């Protein structure tokens, strides 16, 4: 059974007198350990799909089962608990809390879990080390570059050891060099830690790091299939 199963997944909402359907009866399976890139023009429904999988939005039709649980039926508070246990979210604009240090930002999701302070500390240190930003643990977001902020955001996404990491254009606000570093980091998470990664991107180069890419247009999948992995090419080189 696939880790993520979407059956006739639909999202529609009313705007004025009309109805907009950003996602229309979409069927999709994502296996555990997959690295999926969602591509498509603006308004094609890729962020909507990502948000549904991340449990921060609700479908208006169809089924969405993740690890056997139909998350569309969960109450708002149960869904919040489910997110804290299963999802790590990486945003395009990092969304770090500006009044907290890098360490405290990474620690934030762990506060939702019962664990001894020592274990929490170890987890934060490990996550910061993994993304290569341990030396900046006491810096505030305003004291970090965009690439460093995104590393902290990635550390925050992985610190609870979630099964699924979703990333909404994680390199969209970065220069090419930082973008490459971030993509290499995400690839490591997928390859070495076996994290299931779903990433929305407009950038074909970034999509090249994924194991497979899906194209959406007007809320429908148009071109499922495997693509040549840039990471594999790098690895081969």
């Amino acid at each position, binding site marked *: 059974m696939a880790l993520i199963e979407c059956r006739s997944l639909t999202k529609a909402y009313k705007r004025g007198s009309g109805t907009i359907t950003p996602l229309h009866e979409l069927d999709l399976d994502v296996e555990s350990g997959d690295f999926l890139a969602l591509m498509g023009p603006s308004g094609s429904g890729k962020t*909507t799909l990502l948000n549904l999988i*991340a449990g921060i*939005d609700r479908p208006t039709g169809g089924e969405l089962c993740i690890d056997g649980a139909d998350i569309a039926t969960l109450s708002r508070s149960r869904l919040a608990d489910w*997110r*804290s246990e299963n999802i790590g*979210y990486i945003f395009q604009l990092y*969304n770090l*809390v*500006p009044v907290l240090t890098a360490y405290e930002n990474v620690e934030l999701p762990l506060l*939702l879990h019962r664990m001894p302070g020592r274990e929490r500390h170890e987890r934060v240190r490990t996550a910061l080390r993994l993304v290569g930003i341990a030396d900046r643990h006491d810096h505030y977001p305003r004291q970090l570059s965009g690439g460093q902020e995104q590393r902290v955001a990635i550390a925050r996404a992985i610190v609870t050891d979630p099964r699924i990491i979703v990333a909404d254009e994680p390199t969209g606000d970065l220069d090419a060099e930082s973008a490459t570093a971030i993509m290499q980091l995400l690839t490591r998470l997928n390859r070495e830690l076996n994290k299931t990664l779903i990433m929305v991107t407009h950038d074909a180069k970034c999509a090249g790091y994924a194991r497979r890419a899906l194209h959406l247009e007007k809320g429908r999948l148009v071109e499922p299939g495997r693509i040549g992995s840039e990471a594999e090419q790098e690895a081969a080189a």
Partner: protein
Amino acid sequence: MRLLPFDYAVRNLGRSAARLLLSVLGSALVVVLVIAAAAFVRGMSGSLNISGSANNIILLGAGSEESVERSEVEASTPGLLEASVSGVRARAGVSYVSPQVHVMLPVQTSSQQTKERQALIRGVTPEALLVHDMVRITEGRLPRPGSDEIMLGRMVGTSLGVPESDLAVGGTIVIDGRPWKVCGRFAAPGTVMEGEVWAPLLDVMAATKRATISCVVLTIDPALTDVGEIEVFTKMRPDLELVAMTELAYYGRLAGFFGPIKVVAWVTAALIALGGLFGGLNTMYAAFASRVRELGALQSLGFRRAAIVVSLVQESLLATTVGGLLACAVAVLFLDGLAVRFSMGAFGLVVDAPVVGVGLCAGLGLGLFGALPPAVRCLRLSIPEALKSF
């Protein structure tokens, strides 16, 4: 439900120094005004309540229970009472029976010779110091009969709105066109007597051309008698046309008379607090609205809306609590004891624990109700919408 760290709320206060200052000073101002209203009501009620003693019986002319100034009692009544009523306290052969005249008269002082103010003049005998044992002569002495001398309460200056230098012992003030020499000052903390002018009974009767007195105050020994027995006496002597009541009851009636003034004070305080609340709502909405995306991100991490609301309310409460404490400090330092003039004379504002409590509650209410609607409004957006906002 797992909450956001308290540190998050504390540090959020530092995001905008101007907004923090506005919140703290705004809430401090509202709390100071609420405390002032509470201190006014408490001071007024307190001065009337303290002024009366449970063991003091006041005998007034029948039908004048509402105002001692309108009361007329035969001048021979004190002697009759002393001879007829048992259980009146006595010391060294002197009974605690004090005949008194209460009259409002225009007063002029050296710095305000063209402006007259009304003051309550109490004509007394030395027995007044026995029945009103809270009265302490702080300077000079009791006025001597036939010398046109007077003794002034500690708050007469406030009551008349004149500088203390006008009321110094040895000086002269003009009462109803006649000069009187100030021979003493007295204090009777917290009572309405502090706003009064005391003069010898016979001098006041002569000056006001009256043959009757206003009332007789006597102190009873509660082990030997009670107000009921005095009432029996007044009924047995209907020719005297007297009513008897405890001083507590008399001042209690007066307190009831000033009830509407207290209501106005509370309504004013409530309106000020409401104005402050709307100001707070605006400030907090501006503060939270600029963080909608961050609040969406916190929800996406798994924090529940209620946890975020708690954190935002904590933030607001912190600001208003600081403002409230600041206001309490200002009130204790500058408002407590501040003299206020009113028709009965003067009283001091009372900033005590209950008043400070009212102020702190107002501050906390401001923080809670000023933050809840903006917090709920900012969290009404769905998470995807919140994440898209700037």
